[in-house]
């Protein structure tokens, strides 16, 4: 369980997050959406302990009962993996060496062929020996995803449920691979893990999210199920343009860009 209350944050003297409170349950996908610059990445960085929250009264930030700010990185790494919006790699590591970093950080045994299997799972079969720098942007993103999956290889760990925190995991991917990432996130959650991810695409959000957090100007404008948050009024307010949410009879809601007048 991820529990957040009264989470505020300032960087370089600017207040970027205001009194955020919500909780995310394992077994579910929690999607963070909102316009550019609304604080999605900053929120994820705060949730993972990368930047410290302002110590205001009532602040609470805990994962599986561990206070994020006070837990050793090594302990957190055993049940939580984080994918940043972009990752630059300093030296000519191969894909397999990158994935191994995740493997070494996570907990629990791993099959000897896990690295190859994970690379195949992100549709890079047999690519373990290739240098990371030779991959395209989308392929690099998938190598990083494989690393994160190697770290969170157990959806349920001895320390409680495993967690994936993903910042725009599909931003540089084509539609086939976007769906692949959604499938991976879904099966991680279905196996008992928790997923918190920043998403850009409202339709993907509508498709996979169990809970949606809608950010606007550093505040949580709304939270709830897809049908509670993805509404004309809320989206229009958050994104600053009229948006009409469509609804296909047999499936969930969808948003055509053309419907934004």
């Amino acid at each position, binding site marked *: 369980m991820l529990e957040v209350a009264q989470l505020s944050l300032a960087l370089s003297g600017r207040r970027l997050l205001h009194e955020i409170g919500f909780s995310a349950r394992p077994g579910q996908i929690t999607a963070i959406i909102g316009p550019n610059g609304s604080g999605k990445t900053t929120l994820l960085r705060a949730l993972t302990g990368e930047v410290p929250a302002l110590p205001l009264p009532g602040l609470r930030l805990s994962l599986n009962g561990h206070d994020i700010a006070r837990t050793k990185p090594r302990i957190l790494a055993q049940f939580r993996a984080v994918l940043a919006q972009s990752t630059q790699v300093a030296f000519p*590591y191969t894909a397999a060496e990158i994935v191994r970093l995740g493997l070494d950080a996570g907990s629990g045994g791993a099959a000897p062929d896990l690295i190859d299997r994970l690379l195949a799972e992100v549709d890079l079969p047999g690519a*373990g020996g290739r240098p990371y720098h030779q991959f395209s942007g989308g392929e690099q993103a998938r190598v990083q995803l494989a690393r994160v999956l190697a770290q969170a290889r157990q959806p349920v760990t001895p320390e409680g449920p495993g967690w994936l925190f993903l910042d725009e995991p599909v931003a540089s991917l084509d539609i086939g691979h976007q769906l692949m990432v959604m499938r991976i996130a879904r099966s991680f959650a279905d196996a008992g893990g928790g997923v918190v991810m920043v998403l850009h695409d409202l339709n993907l959000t509508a498709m996979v999210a169990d809970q949606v957090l809608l950010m606007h100007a550093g505040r949580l404008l709304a939270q709830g199920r897809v049908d509670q948050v993805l509404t004309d009024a809320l989206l229009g307010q958050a994104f600053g343009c009229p948006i009409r949410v469509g609804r296909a009879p047999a499936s969930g809601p969808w948003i055509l860009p053309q419907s934004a007048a």
Partner: protein
Amino acid sequence: MVALPLPRRPRPQASRSLPRPTPRLVTLLLVLLLLAVSVISLGTGAAGLRLTEILPALFGEGLDRRAEVILWDIRLPRLALGIVVGASLALSGALLQGLFRNPLADPGIVGVGAGAGLGAVLAIVLGGLLPPAIAAWTGLHLVPFAAFLGGLGVTLLLYRLATRGGQTSVALLLLAGIALAAFAGAATGILIYMADDRQLRDLTFWSMGSLAGASWAKLGGALPLILPAMIAAPFLARGLNALALGEAQALHLGIRVQAMKRLAVFVTAAATGAAVAVSGGIGFIGIVVPHLLRLFAGPDHRALLPQSALLGAALLVAADMIARSIVAPAELPIGIVTACLGAPVFLWILLGRRGLTGL
């Protein structure tokens, strides 16, 4: 409408994989290389004592007095010093590069060596002012530790100057390094004017960068710095690998980033300081060795750190042989040899990085 044939999606080819030898094989080859270079080095020298005459003595067999002195008091300490200094320089290069996440960070280039040099010169010149009791107590450790502190100061300052929020600006790193090196050089120059004749001899000899004048005592003076550095370095490997993805990723991979970086700074300064204190400014080992190893054996610090030490030792012993034999019976300062080998490699790295953002 004409349907275009769908281009086949390019699949990652196994054949494009790097043909890297296993780390164990590389390490084994490097050990053999170091052994070979060491043996040849023992058999090279102005005295003209051959390998065949030297080797039996190593195993305790009779040797005439002169040969024994040459072996035990000249060649062996010089070989040992070469190994220790080469290993330290290459290791501190690999560590500094990992810390700054950039293959151009070399203790010599970014001014850490100059800072260590300033510390050493301070100790040589002002050490004479110490009360005899204290001077006797610090003994041969004074210069190495002063060099360590000088190197530490520059490394910390560099980090402050060139790194913001975990991102190192390479331009700032190199330029700040130039400024710090220039400042340390100027301060060193002032101190040299203050030096008396005996100190001046120490200084000139030292500033050329040389293994000449090697002695067991000198080696002993530097060991309290080098041994802890060598022992601590392997513990940094996993952290430096994670740090290659950036500070935030390293944190999420379970690394205590600040503590790890602090240890890396101390180990780098200790290894550089000790090397500079005993051998003066020997450049480029710290950049050439890790670069070659990353290229041919891979960047994994768990292998890179020990392999850098091995190759650095072998390279410096070989360079020392060249320095001793090329203008025999005189000898070239070894820094000239390493610069001739190293500067082109540095330019080669620069060219390869042309066009990358921020170098």
